């Protein structure tokens, strides 16, 4: 699949934003994080900025961004529509939580409920995002059970890294925050590894012989494409990346997304707050770059079944 850059940026940024929102929505009411206006403003502000920036970016992918509101209508059948609804719905409890936290410095009672609701909605949004891909049987690498958990786990992990950073920014040094990051990163790493393994192992179940119904006469080879220059289908669905190249990029993605942030988080446990801030920032940047690369690979490595009409033997 042709990597759609606006979508890659969207899922990376919004994913982190929702991850942060989930943590704030749950940990705020639990009192694990400062209930100050400043922290509320910075924390929820960052989460919602990332979410909103991502959502806006995703509309750049559209042929008609001005009609994006129409995407809210088909939640009964479309995961993309559900994602839109869920993402907007999330603003309501998140906004109420923000009012309580920033203006009233309260995250209890009704506001706590709103926090939990925001977290639930945010998880829901991440699930919807994952389901957009996971629900497509046309793309083998996406149509598998690990795609949704990876989206959720990476959102949480990058959100946890952001939370670590924010806590240090307001001068709160905790041990649980780096630990949380390490744990969510480890979970995401595990899931992503499983996802890749699953994608690599998945059998190419469709052949050109099946696709053309001509297998009864023998092996099918393309003789003439419909058009000599690539058409939309080939441009969108025909993106190819070499296996070796992909393996190398996967290693880099793992390094940036998981290894570096985990090591850095571990270091943070040992380091003081001054250097800790820099380390936390480094972990966020590394993971951000890593997730962007992971998402790019998510597209680039995905093969669409339609390409068997255009010369691939199986998909």
């Amino acid at each position, binding site marked *: 699949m042709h990597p759609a850059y606006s979508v890659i940026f969207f899922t990376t940024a919004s994913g982190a934003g929702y991850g942060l929102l989930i943590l704030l929505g749950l940990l705020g009411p639990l009192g694990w994080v400062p209930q100050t206006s400043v922290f509320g403003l910075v924390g929820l502000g960052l989460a919602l900025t990332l979410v909103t920036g991502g959502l806006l970016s995703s509309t750049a992918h559209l042929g008609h961004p001005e009609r994006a509101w129409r995407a809210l209508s088909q939640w009964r059948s479309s995961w993309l529509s559900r994602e839109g609804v869920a993402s907007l719905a999330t603003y309501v409890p998140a906004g109420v939580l923000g009012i309580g936290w920033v203006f009233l410095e309260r995250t209890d009672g009704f506001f706590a409920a709103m926090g939990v609701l925001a977290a639930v909605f945010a998880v829901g949004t991440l699930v919807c995002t994952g389901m957009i891909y996971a629900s497509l049987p046309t793309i083998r690498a996406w149509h598998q059970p690990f795609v949704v958990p990876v989206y959720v786990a990476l959102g949480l992990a990058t959100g946890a890294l952001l939370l670590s950073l924010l806590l240090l920014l307001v001068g709160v040094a905790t041990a649980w925050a780096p630990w949380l990051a390490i744990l969510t990163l480890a979970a995401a790493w595990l899931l992503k590894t499983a996802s890749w393994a699953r994608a690599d192992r998945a059998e190419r179940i469709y052949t050109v012989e099946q696709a053309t119904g001509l297998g009864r006469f023998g092996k099918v*080879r393309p*003789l003439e494409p*419909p*058009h*000599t*220059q690539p058409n939309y289908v080939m441009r969108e669905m025909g993106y190819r990346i070499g296996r070796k190249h992909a393996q190398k990029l996967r290693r880099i993605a793992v390094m940036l997304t998981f290894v570096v942030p985990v090591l850095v988080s571990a270091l943070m446990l040992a380091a003081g707050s001054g250097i800790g801030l820099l380390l936390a920032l480094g972990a966020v940047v590394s993971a951000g770059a890593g997730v962007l690369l992971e998402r790019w690979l998510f597209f680039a490595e995905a093969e669409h079944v339609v390409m068997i009409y255009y010369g691939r033997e199986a998909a």
Partner: protein
Amino acid sequence: MPTGEPSIALSVPVGDAAKTTTCYMCACRCGIKVHLRNGKVRYIEGNRDHPVNRGVLCGKGAAGIMQHYSPARLKAPLKRVGPRGSGEFAEIGWEEALSIAAGWLGEVRERDPSRLAFFTGRDQSQALTGWFAQQFGTPNFAAHGGFCSVNMAAAGLYTFGGSFWEFGDPDWDRTKYFMLFGVAEDHASNPIKAALGRLKARGVKIVAVNPVRTGYNAIADQWIGIRPGTDGMLAGALIHELLRTQRIDLEYLVRYTNAPWLVIRDPGAGDDGLFARGGNGKPLAFDKQSGALADATLAGIAPALVGEYELADGRTAVPSFVPMAERFLSAEYTPEKAAAVTGVPAETIRRLARELAHTAFEQQISLDVPWTDWAGRRHETMTGRPVSMHAMRGISAHSNGFHTCRLLHLLQILLGSIDCPGGFRYKPPFPKPTPPPNRPAGKLGTVHPGKPLAGSPLGFPQGPEDLLVDGDGRPLRIDKAYSWDAPVAAHGLMHMVITNAANADPYPVDVLFMYMANMSWNSSMNIPAVLRYLTEKAPGTDDYSIPRIIYSDAYFSEMVPYADLILPDTTYLERWDCISLLDRPISEPDGPADAIRQPVVAPDRDVRPFQAVLIDLGARLRLPGFVDEQGAPKYPGGYADYIVNHERGPGIGPLAGFRGADGRSYGKGAPNPRQLDEYIANGCFHQHHLEPEQRFYKHANKAYLEWAKEVGFVGSADPIIFQLYLEPLQRFRLAARGHGAVQPPPSHRRRIETFFDPIPFWYAPFEGAVLDEAEYPLHAVTQRPMHMYHSWGSQNAWLRQITAENRLYIHRDRALALGVGDDDWVWITSAIGRVKCQVRLMEGVNPDTVWTWNAVGKRAGAWGLAPDAPEATRGFLLNHLISELLPEREGGYRFSNSDPVTGQAAWYDLRVRVERAKPDEAGESWPRFERLADPLGQTRPAVSAFGADFREAQR
């Protein structure tokens, strides 16, 4: 309707106006209906009433909109201001353009009319252009037939008075076995497609003989992947088998052919091999009833096909059937011999012969339609031998094409399947006499300054005395047509004009005037040489070797920069045209048909239809017929005026329908001022329907022949006799043996002796015969993509998306042996040059053959395309590899790379080798020529949203 579904406009009218006309996206000439909205072309559909396409339309026809709105359209007359080839032009007005042209042409005409070479390409107005040449007085006229299909036309016309494609059709609705030889997507585009669909529906077996299995060949029941140029050998072996198994129609032969005519056997005599004739000049046969010689054309005799007979003068003669049968029964034509030549297994050949015979004789059909033969004898039924064939350029474009085509006709005739139900049927005005009676004009001493020619420049020679040669046997025409180089060049040799004119061989020309022929690119062989000829200066002078070139075309083709004066033509939707019975009609076997084009939209540029320009020039030159007695233009209304009012003979004009003052006459009748209106009201065509009794055996059908004479199709109602034995060829041969007043120069005698065999035969194509086959082991041929016509398709925004670059196709096994993989880049090398291109491997191609799509490669800058268009960077032509001349012979003479009988360009004789290119050579085709400068500053849209204007109607 459930809620939620938007309501959509389901009954929007197509447009606000619709006009019928004739398609020109290829040579098929289908009827179309053009729908307009707000003056713009909205939709073009096939005309359901039209005899050619009956409503369907091919991939080209349906893309006509993009041809009409092509950015490559020329916009105004141009005068060259820079050096030739530079593309530097100045726009001028029509008055200036026409006076320049008239000045050049008038000067030539007053000095020596033959110094004008007037050649036209794929135009459909040769009845007019030929007449212009005749009235101008130059013999140097022809259209593109010399590099298209003259072998087919000449072989057919000389043999049975018709031919494949234009002049006949398989009896699609009755045939039970169909063989297709060498046909890609060529002409008769929709009729063949529609017919194949109908054959499929009826379960008729289709056999396709073609080195390449694409298109029509792909859906055949049996594909015979023959080696190029060997179809004649296959036909010869099929004939061998039919004779050996005694499976031919002897009755058909004695009734309709010259098989019983006696041929004089008197080696060394001046009439050896000619027909023995009686006192009345009629050929003789031996009548088995009376046991005596008899006029072979009489009805009621029982002519012998076998034996040796004594003539009145004591010499012996044999029925022409005897040497013919002897030839094909000989060991030269056994299936084994043919298998070695053609690559088709001997058992396959035997089986094909059995199937042909089985279908012809055991599946004979009979129509309960009484008819009367030429001798007045009534027959209650029409017997059909339902075997039919069709052939095209794969047969024609070889140096053995004439004889190969004759072999196919011989095969058809031996099976008794010409113009019978289920067989191959004439399309009136065919059949014509074998050959048609008109001879080429322009003989020595008949071309005079300021005077017209005595007849049409093109015709059908019947012996050496009809040639256009001087006292030493040298050619009188610039293309050497009707000379000893190509005596039966019935369509001329357009492909030799530039080479010959530049080399002043046989003489130079002053003005070269061409129309719609891309002679500096895909219509010429050896393009680098042609470009040199077009731009080189005559030795010791500052003048170009070809001093003046006038060119008319609608589009910025590769030829435009090489002309001095450009007369921009209109598109096909902006013009009057006439698809005339005097030219190449659109008839169907059940009746003759002709058609017109009418302007559907007005030109938005300063362009004029070429035919109107030619009529204007004729008037300016005061050519007879173009002006009245007072010298005023005779057709001030342009081509439409000419179409209605011109009379070629009394009552005979360009259009046969709606003639006479009342519009009720057919064929002959006074000009009808309302004729075009009546054509338009009838869908821009007219078809006459023959009576059922006239529809078959037209060559010997009294009712048909008498009617054909009445409407002027034939001069007499005499039966048309199939010439299995072709006496005119023997006349040329006798001249080569030193007989007669007109004899070939010594350099040509062996060639004439060899190839002017009155009985068809197969010989190896010349290029393969003169080259080392080990060095050039592969045949290389082209075929046309179904969705493109010559070079025109690439300017079409839709068609070029389908094919913007071409590959060299090569058999998988052969590629493996050569170490070439799919998508590799290779060098193709011929005796004269190299071409680099990318390959694609395939199964369905003869293993000794490589091929590519024709005319996709373009020169950078032409056709309104970006210079980096794939057509220019990755597309390629094989033309660069094909020599227009054969290697030097003893005495230093170089014959053209053409059929020795007709001069047909032997495109498909090409032999090559293929080698893998180095890795750093991949990516671009070669050769690349200097980018053509754009004379018009054409603008190319970055995005085309054609139809956006029509959106409002939908909402």
